């Protein structure tokens, strides 16, 4: 069955900054990275559908309601303490983006089935945690060194970019990408 995902490709300076950081960590600690780095944020966890046409239609219809300037900002780093640890860039909490994600989930829920159940967290941790993975595989060995390296990075308010598009992936390839400034649900 086809697997679908919704999220954004980071753009502008945040994309350049995180890509450069992944390359630097990979080189410094000799950790293998993916050949193609695409910094991105997942909006909805992977799902399947029995009605792709309706999915595409609802995806575009929901996003077309958002026509104001929305930006996202990188505000620091974090880690997921899984068996295989993950370092990520933290995106500053943004009510406009959170509304958009909740709206997408509500408008699509009748038509999709999430592959994995929602992780149950205590209420105070239920908030949407937008993050962009920096490096994951093989970091356990150098965990504290990478942690130190990331924490001494300097931040400026410029690691911000406008939200231009939201993608709908099918099996890792872009099926549609909603463009807020062209107001189009783009396909190839």
């Amino acid at each position: 069955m086809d697997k679908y995902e919704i999220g954004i490709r980071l753009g502008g300076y945040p994309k350049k900054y995180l890509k450069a950081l992944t390359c630097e960590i990979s080189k410094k600690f000799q950790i293998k990275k993916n050949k193609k780095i695409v910094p991105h944020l997942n909006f909805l966890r992977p799902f399947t559908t029995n009605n792709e046409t309706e999915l595409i239609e609802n995806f575009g219809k929901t996003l077309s309601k958002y026509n104001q300037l929305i930006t996202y900002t990188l505000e620091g780093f974090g880690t997921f303490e899984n068996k295989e640890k993950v370092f990520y860039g933290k995106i500053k909490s943004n009510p406009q983006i959170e509304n958009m994600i909740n709206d997408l989930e509500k408008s699509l829920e009748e038509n999709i089935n999430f592959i994995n159940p929602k992780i149950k967290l205590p209420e105070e941790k239920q908030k949407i945690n937008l993050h962009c993975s920096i490096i994951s595989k093989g970091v356990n060995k150098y965990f504290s060194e990478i942690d130190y390296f990331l924490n001494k990075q300097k931040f400026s308010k410029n690691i911000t970019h406008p939200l231009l598009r939201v993608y709908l992936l099918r099996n890792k390839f872009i099926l549609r990408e909603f463009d807020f400034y062209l107001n189009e649900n783009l396909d190839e």
Partner: protein
Amino acid sequence: MNSFIFDRTEKAFKEKTGFEITKDGLLLPVPESFQ
């Protein structure tokens, strides 16, 4: 032409907001909320 490239989007963004996305990925002029 691949419609997933950002050329048309960046042009439309500039027309609608007045901000330009530079080659370095920064916004000009810098919005007040960024300063």
